């Protein structure tokens, strides 16, 4: 490989690093390093109490403000439901026969969109990362589409797909695709050239190189992309459901607003938060199981 090619590769990698962090900033969900994660859980009881008190203060203020219909000029609590109203509303929804289909519909859409995005993102990412020819062929249209947020696709998606179900899945797909794609390309580009040279020296052919070196080498980056993508697909889904849905958590939230069942709005929001975070955490845990070597202290480069 010539030196020119090497430096080109490097600058491409830097570009992608930038864009990958762009994607992170867009969704507001950063993927913290593992060590940070661990530190966050290993806290002293004293700090835990402080944190619990903070939570209690927050909820109490919310209760107080809603109960007294506080008007702070810039923000008003006049129509905001209090926690004491939200809890019974939550209980009601949990007991209603519709809850299953709301959650089920949303989960189905997210997973259909997310998994097709994962498949497409990883495949395209590997191709772009490995072959300059594929990069030249595929990157221009993808680069054009990349800055368009998934949500902006809603009107066009409704026109493009005869079924609103498909259009919502498509929007979820678009939301997850780019974080996954970019992180895959970044991961593939970041693989030490000496490792691929070694694998070839040890007798690996093209296909074996992909499955034995490129894919596992890019895996940590891919897992990060999947976890960011999961966050964006929930974000896109909820918005899409508000506009095109029939069932689903986003639809439920919006419907509650239209029917002036304000407490139910907050219930919907809580569901969105719990499921969005839950699936991201679940995904990261599963991903971590796939890359046990990456969890060992000192496994990542400084």
């Amino acid at each position, binding site marked *: *490989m*010539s*030196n*020119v090619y*090497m430096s080109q590769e490097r600058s491409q990698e830097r570009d992608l690093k930038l864009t990958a962090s762009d994607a992170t900033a867009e969704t507001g969900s950063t993927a913290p390093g593992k060590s940070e994660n661990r530190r966050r859980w290993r806290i002293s009881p004293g700090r835990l109490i402080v944190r619990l008190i903070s939570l209690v203060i927050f909820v109490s203020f919310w209760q107080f403000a809603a109960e007294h219909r506080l008007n702070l000029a810039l923000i008003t609590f006049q129509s905001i439901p209090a926690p004491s109203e939200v809890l019974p509303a939550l209980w009601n929804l949990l007991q209603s026969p519709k809850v299953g289909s709301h959650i089920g519909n949303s989960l189905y859409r997210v997973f259909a969109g997310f998994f097709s995005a994962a498949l497409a993102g990883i495949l395209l990412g590997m191709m772009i990362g490995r072959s300059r020819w594929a990069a030249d062929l595929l990157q221009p249209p993808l680069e054009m589409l990349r800055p368009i947020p998934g949500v902006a696709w809603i009107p066009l998606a409704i026109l493009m797909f005869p079924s609103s179900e498909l259009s919502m899945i498509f929007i979820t797909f678009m939301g997850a695709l780019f974080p996954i794609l970019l992180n895959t390309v970044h991961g593939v580009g970041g693989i*030490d*050239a*000496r*490792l691929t*040279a*070694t*694998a*070839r*020296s*040890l*007798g*690996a*052919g093209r296909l*074996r190189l992909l499955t*034995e*070196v490129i894919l*596992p*080498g890019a*895996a940590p980056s891919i897992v990060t992309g999947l976890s960011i993508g999961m966050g964006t697909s929930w974000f896109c889904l909820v918005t899409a459901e508000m506009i095109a849905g029939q069932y689903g958590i986003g639809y439920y939230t919006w419907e509650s607003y239209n029917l002036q069942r304000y407490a139910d709005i907050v219930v919907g929001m809580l569901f969105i938060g719990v499921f969005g975070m839950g699936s991201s955490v679940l995904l990261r845990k599963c991903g971590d199981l796939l*890359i046990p*070597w*990456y969890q*060992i202290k*000192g*496994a990542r480069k400084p």
Partner: protein
Amino acid sequence: MSEMQSGHIEAREVSIDLGNGKENFRAIDRVSFNIASGEFICLLGPSGCGKSTLLGALAGHIPLAEGCLTLDGKAIIGPSSERGLVFQQHTLFPWKKVVDNVAFGLKMKGIATRERHARANELLKLVGLSGFENKYPVQLSGGMQQRVEIARVLINQPRVLLMDEPFGALDAQTRWVMQQLLLQVWAHIRTTVVFVTHDIDEAIFLADRVLVMSHCPGRIREEMVIPAERARGEQWVTSDAFMHLKRDCLDLMREEHRLGHGAETASELAQQFAGAFI
């Protein structure tokens, strides 16, 4: 592990150019040598003299500009598992456990898990790493990582073992242990070894024959046969004969340094490109 195929290397008028366009320069100039099968050769020379480049060509990673390089009469074109390569910095796969790193070559040949693990464990025992099979590379020390690296290359029963300053990054104590280990392993597996180093003691301790290289463009300046008996140990490195050879080498290197003084920029270039040959 006993019946190695031959491993006779022949270089005839080999020249290698590195760098693109304007930066193009001749790193190796009309080098010829013969290495008998089962011989332990050290390429000794100052940094940037092209010894790594020559090794890269033997590995099949660097193309020749002129001349011809053969292994057992067949021209060397591209990398192959019959020429195992060990670098200064380990290139173990961080996602594979030690045993799977060692067994990698066998996996590529389609050998079943049980058998390849059995053979990997055998080799790990040979390099003194029994009990570390299920560790990941990052959990090992630098010396251990190089042991795994050597085991991984040897499992392919290569005709030639190419080593590019494999112990250069280790501390002096570990390096000494590893040099002795390498000779022990080599006593078991009599493959041809081409070992690149800039450490005179290392070369004289290990080799049957030392090829001393000169600077810019790289040429073979001197060939020293090391007459010591095998099963070398501390007696050898403290013997008069060793000291004598070392003095000769130092003289050569000093002269080389004086001659190569004007060519420093070019030698820096050579170093830079030799590092980026893959």
